[in-house]
């Protein structure tokens, strides 16, 4: 496969050229505009924007809430994927289809629905208020919205791996005297781990950039429940393009790091998978 195989099929130049031109015009050149705009700021100016108290608080909230939501999704996603692959129950097909709801439902719609449910006078919020927990208009609300958004990522990456897991491996483990918990820890979990990590990273990356579902439930109180994308919009509304660009560049950098992480996990997975064969 190292060799570039000559092909009898036509259309490479057309398809490749079109792909490159369209990709450049729509994605690469506009993204580089962001980076170039940032370089017009001096390092001191850049640092001043990025290290201001409000921005740092927003970064902390965005990261913290995204991380917590991704961890919740890691466990809940594995559980849901497991149940969907291993057990049969009435309405399973509907449940399976419903898992993709956060992909299909516009984020703003999810945002207002979650806010209504978790507001202090809402169906769930009222019950939680009795326990002294306030979700909506607090950082906890951000976590709820991000958990909703990220759920399908983990389920959909882990599901096929569990599906393809050979039953023989588990039977062998049972024959060798392992109980179910041991089999899960030593056989199933390691096999699903790369997929779990990929799903986790995807959910995390999506959560960091998420805007629509969060702004309604967050309450957007500066220093307390204000997320980074909202700060960018706030700066834009004040025509502070330099400030918006500086904050956005940091977000873009984080995106690149996460893409790299996903690629590394997949490379690791492919290598392990290749070795087993």
């Amino acid at each position, binding site marked *: *496969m190292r060799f*570039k195989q000559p*092909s*009898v*099929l036509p*259309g490479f130049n057309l*398809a*490749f050229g*079109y*792909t490159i031109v369209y990709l450049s015009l*729509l994605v*690469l050149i*506009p*993204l580089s*505009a962001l980076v170039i705009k940032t370089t017009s700021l001096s390092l001191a100016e850049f640092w001043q924007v990025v290290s201001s108290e409000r921005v740092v608080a927003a970064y902390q909230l965005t990261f913290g809430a995204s991380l917590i939501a991704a961890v919740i999704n890691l466990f*809940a996603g594995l*559980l*849901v994927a497991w*149940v969907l692959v291993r*057990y049969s129950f009435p309405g399973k097909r509907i449940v*399976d*289809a*419903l*898992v*993709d709801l956060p*992909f*299909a*439902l*516009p*984020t*703003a*719609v999810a945002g*207002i*629905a*979650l806010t*209504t449910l978790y507001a202090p006078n809402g*169906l769930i919020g009222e019950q939680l208020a009795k326990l002294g927990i306030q979700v909506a208009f607090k950082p906890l609300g951000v976590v709820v919205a991000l958990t*909703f958004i990220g759920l399908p990522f983990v389920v959909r990456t882990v599901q096929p791996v569990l599906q393809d897991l050979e*039953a*023989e491996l*588990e039977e062998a483990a049972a*024959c060798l005297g392992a109980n*179910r918990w041991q*089999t899960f820890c030593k056989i199933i979990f390691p096999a699903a781990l790369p997929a779990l990590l990929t799903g986790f990273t995807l959910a995390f990356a999506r959560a*960091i*950039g*998420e*805007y*629509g579902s969060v702004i*309604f439930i967050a309450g957007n109180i500066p220093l307390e429940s204000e997320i*980074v*994308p909202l700060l*960018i919009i706030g700066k*834009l509304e004040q025509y502070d393009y330099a400030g918006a660009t500086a904050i*956005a560049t940091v*977000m*873009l950098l984080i*995106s*690149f790091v*996460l893409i790299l992480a996903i690629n590394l996990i997949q490379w690791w997975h492919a290598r392990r998978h290749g070795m087993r064969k």
Partner: protein
Amino acid sequence: MQAVSTTAVRSAATQEAVWVRWLLLTGALLFLGFFLVLPLVSIFAEALRKGWALYWEALKEPDALSALQLTLTVTLISVPINLVFGVAAAWAIAKFDFKGKSLLITLIDLPFSVSPVVAGLIYVLIFGAQGWLGPWLQAHDIKIIFAVPGIVLATMFVTFPFIARELIPLMEAQGTEEEQAAMVLGASGWQTFWKITLPNIKWGLLYGVILCNARAMGEFGAVSVVSGHIRGMTNTTPLHVEILYNEYNFVASFACASILALLALVTLVAKTWVEWQTERQMAAERAAVYES
């Protein structure tokens, strides 16, 4: 072997105890009930809280109708453009071997990882009044930001990878033998594409279009940055939902949201149907292989 092992009845040794099964199943369904079903139901409940009459009233409102019309227009422009791109990109990447292929795939996936707000911002930096092309556009009286072209651009950006991403693994798995056979038999490139490749990828293509379409209709963050929220002009339905909600007009807001939720449900049904068709096709192919 694969088919046998996954469909075989599991022996007791590779099953959890009954109470564990019940516990896991209940836990998963409770989680999904709270996080997915309840929000979905609440949209319709809130929309109909004050009765059908007010619900229809909210939907018939001119601003709501023009928002819906804009949403459909933007979708009808951006999805076909990304469809052509997706097929072209998948053809180049899956049917040919060249250096830098994985880099190209990563670049195509890039819009998935970029925050929608950042996606909107980059177009403001280029086409906005203070942007690179801003003065030139103003001199020629062309409006992109705070106008429909900006909304289309932002939507195209966020839906950019959907179709290509669905097609690349599918076309890679299908290989090039059938196309090569067609070429050897004297078909032209386009004939090969229309008669061989396209029928082979039709379900994957449809799947990608469904996902792309759902995102295009529902995009909020990126569109919010470039639209300017001008009612009746540059307001898409998701933005209209936000405006009504912030005006405490909850019934109207949830009424518009319920249309989007219905479209989301249609998306899920269509997606499941396509998955089912693909499974059926694969089963038929497998059966054909066994028979021969």
